[in-house]
């Protein structure tokens, strides 16, 4: 075991930090004491250093100018006295200043960091009509602050962990102690400890590392940037994870249907939210199978088309040189191209892209006879359906899952679709999220949870927390 207090001198620090030009050393001679202040120039808040460290040291009487007094009295909230070498360096790189007493050969670190952070803004990816608009930022401390502010409960735990071999990042596990299920919590912690990468870029990467099944299309953990969603979730017995430097929080365990709920469902009246939720699930199904159905009907089952539609569809197909499968894949690809182009371009250009792509290209392909106009409607409709999922990741999963369905439909017609339904069914049944079944509350069947995940009821029905999360404290509203 190495000594806990490593007192490196300036030269040694310089070597470790590869002669960084930012590394500064300020030597002060105050009376008999020689004090060395080592810091990284760009990382510290100079005002803090000037006002509260240097000025402070200059004003106090000389007899107090020693290690013990300063450690106890320096007017800075965070100091570090015991440091291991690696941590010392990383603290320095975080914006700590190292105050070293040359005579005493002792030193400590004070926090005068100056992290760049965005101000708190409106949520971008998950937008709401009603409800709080505030969103998380890249700073872990302000995220925790937002949560603490809105969830004033002494049982709210924010366990800290550091992840990453080279780039160390702080991770916080947020849960309410007397609600969250212990087994799930331990499971999550175990998984977090097992992760040993060099660096984790973002919490979405962390979420992918934490997932039960890494190969599936479907996301198994919720990612959100909305504090209200986060709070709602952990109050229902889920566990949240923050990572420093990421504005997105991870929530787990999630189930399939929780990707179709939005916190807005709570804010709106129950009738409307029930309707909207059914619409979303319906749109998901339509989005998965509508194009596939078109391909199957056009390729194998023209009998299914009602006689009034038959001529319209037949006419629109008559000039198309491709088989329906290829036609559909081409058009789906086109929509994906448009979407990707729109997402990557600056927003103003993106809008133009959408219009040019959607109207001009669509119109032109139909007029040129490359696709049927019925298919354009269908593809557009299923693209819309995928965007209806409130969690972006689920939307992308549906978009991807659509392609195998289309291909199977093109090969075996309706039977192909049904086979893909079977595969999808088995796949969803096999999935778990933090070892909790993914398809809950449908299977395992928990009818008392339907009001949480499938539809909405007026608020006085919500007396119990959802069973699928297995909360310790199940009662939400105590009956009088």
């Amino acid at each position, binding site marked *: 075991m190495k000594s806990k207090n490593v007192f490196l001198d300036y030269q040694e620090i310089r070597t470790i930090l590869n002669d960084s030009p930012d590394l500064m050393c300020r030597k002060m001679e105050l009376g008999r004491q020689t004090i060395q202040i080592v810091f990284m120039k760009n990382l510290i808040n100079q005002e803090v250093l000037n006002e509260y460290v240097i000025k402070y040291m200059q004003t106090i009487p000389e007899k107090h100018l020693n290690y013990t007094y300063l450690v106890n009295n320096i007017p800075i909230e965070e100091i570090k006295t015991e440091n291991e070498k690696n941590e010392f360096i990383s603290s320095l790189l975080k914006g700590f200043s190292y105050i070293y007493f040359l005579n005493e050969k002792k030193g400590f670190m004070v926090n005068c960091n100056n992290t760049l952070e965005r101000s708190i803004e409106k949520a971008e990816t998950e937008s709401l009509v009603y409800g709080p608009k505030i969103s998380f930022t890249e700073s872990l401390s302000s995220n925790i602050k937002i949560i603490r502010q809105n969830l004033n409960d002494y049982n709210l735990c924010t366990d800290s962990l550091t992840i990453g071999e080279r780039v160390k990042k702080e991770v916080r596990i947020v849960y309410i102690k007397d609600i969250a299920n212990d087994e799930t919590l331990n499971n999550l912690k175990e998984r977090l400890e097992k992760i040993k990468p060099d660096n984790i870029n973002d919490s979405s990467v962390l979420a992918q590392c934490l997932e039960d099944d890494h190969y599936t299309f479907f996301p198994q953990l919720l990612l959100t940037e909305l504090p209200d969603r986060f709070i709602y979730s952990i109050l229902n017995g889920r566990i949240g994870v923050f990572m420093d430097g990421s504005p997105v929080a991870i929530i787990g365990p999630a189930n399939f249907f929780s990707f179709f709920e939005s916190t807005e469902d709570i804010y709106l009246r129950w009738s409307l939210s029930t309707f909207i939720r059914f619409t979303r699930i319906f749109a998901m199904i339509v989005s998965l199978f509508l194009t596939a159905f078109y391909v199957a009907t056009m390729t*194998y*089952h023209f*009998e*299914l*088309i*009602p*006689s009034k539609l038959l001529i319209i569809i037949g006419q629109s197909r008559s000039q198309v040189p491709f088989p329906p499968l290829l036609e559909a894949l081409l058009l789906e690809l086109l929509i994906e191209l448009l979407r990707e182009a729109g997402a990557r371009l600056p927003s103003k250009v993106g809008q133009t892209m959408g219009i040019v792509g959607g109207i001009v290209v669509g119109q032109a392909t139909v007029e040129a006879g490359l696709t049927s106009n019925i298919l354009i409607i269908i593809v557009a409709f299923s693209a819309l359906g995928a965007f209806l999922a409130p969690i972006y990741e689920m939307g992308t999963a549906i978009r991807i899952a659509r392609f195998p369905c289309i291909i199977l439909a093109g090969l*075996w*017609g*309706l*039977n192909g*679709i*049904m*086979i893909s*339904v*079977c*595969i999808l*069914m*088995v796949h969803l*049944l*096999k999935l778990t999220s933090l070892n909790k079944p993914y*398809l809950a509350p*449908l*299977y*395992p*069947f928990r009818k008392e949870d339907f009001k949480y995940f499938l539809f909405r009821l007026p608020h006085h029905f919500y007396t119990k927390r959802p069973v699928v999360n297995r909360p310790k404290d199940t009662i939400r509203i105590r009956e009088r």
Partner: protein
Amino acid sequence: MKSNAIVNAFMAFFIIHTSQFGMGILGAPRIVYLESKKDAWISVLLSGIAISFITWIMISILKQNENRTLFEIHENLFGRMFGSIINVVIVVYFMAVHYSITISYVELSLTWGYEGLYEWVGVLSLVLITIYGVSGGFRVVAGICFLSFIIFIWMLFVLYQPLQSLNLDRILPILSTSPTEIMNGVYKSTYTMLGFEALLFLFPFFKEKNKVHLYSQLAVWFTTFLVLIITIFSILFFSSKELEVNIWPFVSIISTIRFPFIERFEFIVVSIWIIVIFPNLCISLFLSSNGVKQIFRIKQKYGIWIISIIIFICSFFITKRVDNDYFIDKVAQIGFFLWFVYPVVLYGIITIKSKIVGRS
């Protein structure tokens, strides 16, 4: 394999019902009608009562051997050697059931819109999804039963449309056929109703054992009710000669259904039937592979693969309509003796044995 997975007692309803309900129902009305004519529905009702009784016997057997499947009961009762021989018979039976379901579905879908496809392609696709389903263990199989039930059950409400084509005179007069013919009908209707025997093998997986009986009775009666309804529908819908020549009367009834947005609903139903037979396939594969595991003491995974490969190879040989009919007929026969007669015998043996043991 996670064979120790545990499911709630009410899942017994879905598991037993879905393993009963499948390919048989499509042709059952005709097969029963050929024997007991206008009183086919009485035959169905009687076989429902018989199954209900057998279920009671099964539960009584299982109650005495709480945590054992029938495979283990056999080994325990007759010894490893002799018990395994009986288990082999049962495994072969379930394999035959699996194949009979697969081939009759493939035949149906080939008739309905897929002429020109090789049988083995259809069999292979069904076998593959079944392997995928069963390899998830019992929890997934139970889930498949449940979801398949949910996906399918709304289809029954579509039957309101053919209601107006029914003619009540066709079923009258009641009890015009002789009792022997009705009993023949009961015998013929058993193939449709088979599947409740799954209970004997799945009992250890259920949580509240004392509730399982209630739910399995419900399942058995629900199936009987559905078969009854569909049989009555078929009798009322077709004239007698028409019903006698129609191989899949239920599909023909469905073909009267018409929606403004879709014509020829029966094509969709024939496709959806994959989802209906999916639990059947999964359960028969699960049970047979479970038996293989028990007999040879190997992992269930290997059992699944071996059986699936055998099934797939069969699909090159038994493909003709007449062969299929013969095959399914034989499966029905063996099924009748295995699950209508044998449980009673087994119950007798177990009671006698326990009395002897109790005395000494």
